[in-house]
């Protein structure tokens, strides 16, 4: 089986685009990725599209109608917040299987103004929201974080520090939704949504898209793209195995742990070999859990990692130097491709002020509630 490489990526600046269609947003990053790879739509053998909110509406074909209807297969994917990673992985599998040599993956979403996600039951009877707890996403992830606090004494201040870091990182990312520093007292003093998550500790609903061109090894060599070809060392997708609490408490931990273990095995590396990580900080509480789930530290050591600022740019293992979902924004279907864009940008040395110097190996992680986890381990082009 051929190794698979990402030879071109792009993401649009995340924001609010009320006057633009989903397909035009998707087309913009698709064109960016094609240009980056030095190919055209006529070179693409299959298109993998990720979108959640219009999952039944053939978004991939609508993107084709914007950038070129060449008659190639289109695969539309929908997998909650792991939608983008799933689309990318399907493309990776198409090349791994030997069916294609050059494919395009696009993730796109219009989210601005969607309001708070989640829900409180519905269907027959009376609404359970506010009677049987809350099904809102800020609450679900607050409860996941407070379970960590129960075991390890994680504090409100430590959870809030995650948002301070990610909002700081995004000041160096011109494509992030926000470029605004938020000191600790501002994060902790912001509107409380669902304790301990304040408004500045919740991901931003934005519109966005990101895209990647994937190629087989032979295609990379044929086109002379070795110097920009980021190798996919592992592409893993898991779901949540049954755990005792998951009817009332979606388990984002076990599926991440299982995916990380498999990703490290397939890549033949350990977490200590990583130079940077983009992980699914849909809420500040979630990032804390994933430090341990991804093995960036031992169980119970996330609070120490936070206090030592190890995950800031310049620290031992920088996490979410893009600004993360908290500050870059979280356009659901695009998120899993945007994370890969960020890692590739560092591995190719193009990340500007936020560049992780000498980055050779990076990991991109997303979680979709319902539940699934996607992880990609990526390696810098050989010199």
């Amino acid at each position, binding site marked *: 089986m051929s190794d698979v490489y990402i030879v071109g990526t792009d993401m649009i600046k995340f924001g609010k685009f009320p006057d633009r269609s989903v397909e035009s947003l998707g087309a913009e990053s698709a064109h960016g990725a094609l240009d980056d790879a030095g190919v055209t739509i006529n070179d693409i053998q299959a298109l993998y599209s990720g979108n959640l909110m219009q999952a039944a509406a053939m978004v991939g074909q609508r993107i084709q109608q914007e950038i070129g209807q060449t008659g190639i297969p289109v695969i539309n994917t929908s997998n909650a917040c792991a939608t983008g990673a799933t689309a990318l992985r399907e493309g990776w599998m198409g090349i791994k299987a030997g069916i294609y040599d050059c494919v395009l993956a696009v993730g796109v979403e219009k989210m601005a103004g969607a309001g*708070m996600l989640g*829900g*409180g039951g519905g269907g027959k*009877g*009376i*609404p*359970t*929201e*506010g*009677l*049987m*707890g*809350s099904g*809102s996403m*800020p*609450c679900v992830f*607050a*409860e*996941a974080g*407070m*379970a960590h*606090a*129960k075991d390890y004494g994680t504090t*409100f201040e430590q959870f809030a520090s995650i948002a301070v870091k990610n909002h700081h990182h995004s000041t160096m990312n011109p494509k992030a939704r926000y470029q605004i520093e938020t000191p600790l007292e501002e994060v902790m003093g912001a*509107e*409380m*949504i*669902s*304790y*301990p*998550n304040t408004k500045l500790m919740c991901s931003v609903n934005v519109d966005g898209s990101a895209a990647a061109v994937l190629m087989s090894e032979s295609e990379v060599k044929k086109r002379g793209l070795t110097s920009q070809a980021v190798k996919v060392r592992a592409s893993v997708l898991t779901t949540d195995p*049954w755990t*005792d*609490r998951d*009817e*009332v*408490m979606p388990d984002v931990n076990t599926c991440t742990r299982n995916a990380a273990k498999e990703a490290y095995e397939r890549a033949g590396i350990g977490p200590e070999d990583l130079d940077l990580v983009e992980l699914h900080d849909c809420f500040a509480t979630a990032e804390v859990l994933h430090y341990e789930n991804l093995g960036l530290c031992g169980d119970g050591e996330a609070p120490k990692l936070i206090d030592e600022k190890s995950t800031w740019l310049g620290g031992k293992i920088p996490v979410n130097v893009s600004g993360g979902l908290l500050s870059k924004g979280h356009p659901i279907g695009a998120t899993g491709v945007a994370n890969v864009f960020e890692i590739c940008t560092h591995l190719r040395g193009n990340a500007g002020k936020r560049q992780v110097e000498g980055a050779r190996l990076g990991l991109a992680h997303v979680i979709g509630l319902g539940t699934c986890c996607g992880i990609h381990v990526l390696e810098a082009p050989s010199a």
Partner: protein
Amino acid sequence: MADKPLSIVPYLKVPDAGDPYLEGYRCGECNAITLKSRTACAACGARDSFQDHKLSNEGVLHSFSIIHRSFPGIEVPFISAIADLDGGGTVKTNMTGIEADPEKIDLGMRVQVVYEIAPRKDGEGNEYMTFYLKPAAK
């Protein structure tokens, strides 16, 4: 209109006589306890293995959040709480009988299930029985 309160969720049982109670299912093959009925066991895949399993009214607070912003029309703040019940089964519901202040709520504290008529009716005017968690009596 029903002549007795309806159940807010299928695993809350409202008998004609006696107190309401919670009842889920236990898999006879692997002992997994679930709140909802399934085609087969989510833990082990066994078919036709479920038995009714009455849940305890006592347990331990596993996690909580205090909700200050919910969906339109929902009164805030309230405590959303998750408890592991003695003998198995985990439930999530509002916590009452304690201030909505994180300093006052101890993770791991003993809690009990209490049953009350919900303060909402459906479109036909039916009343619903619900349950809350509250600190266990000392």
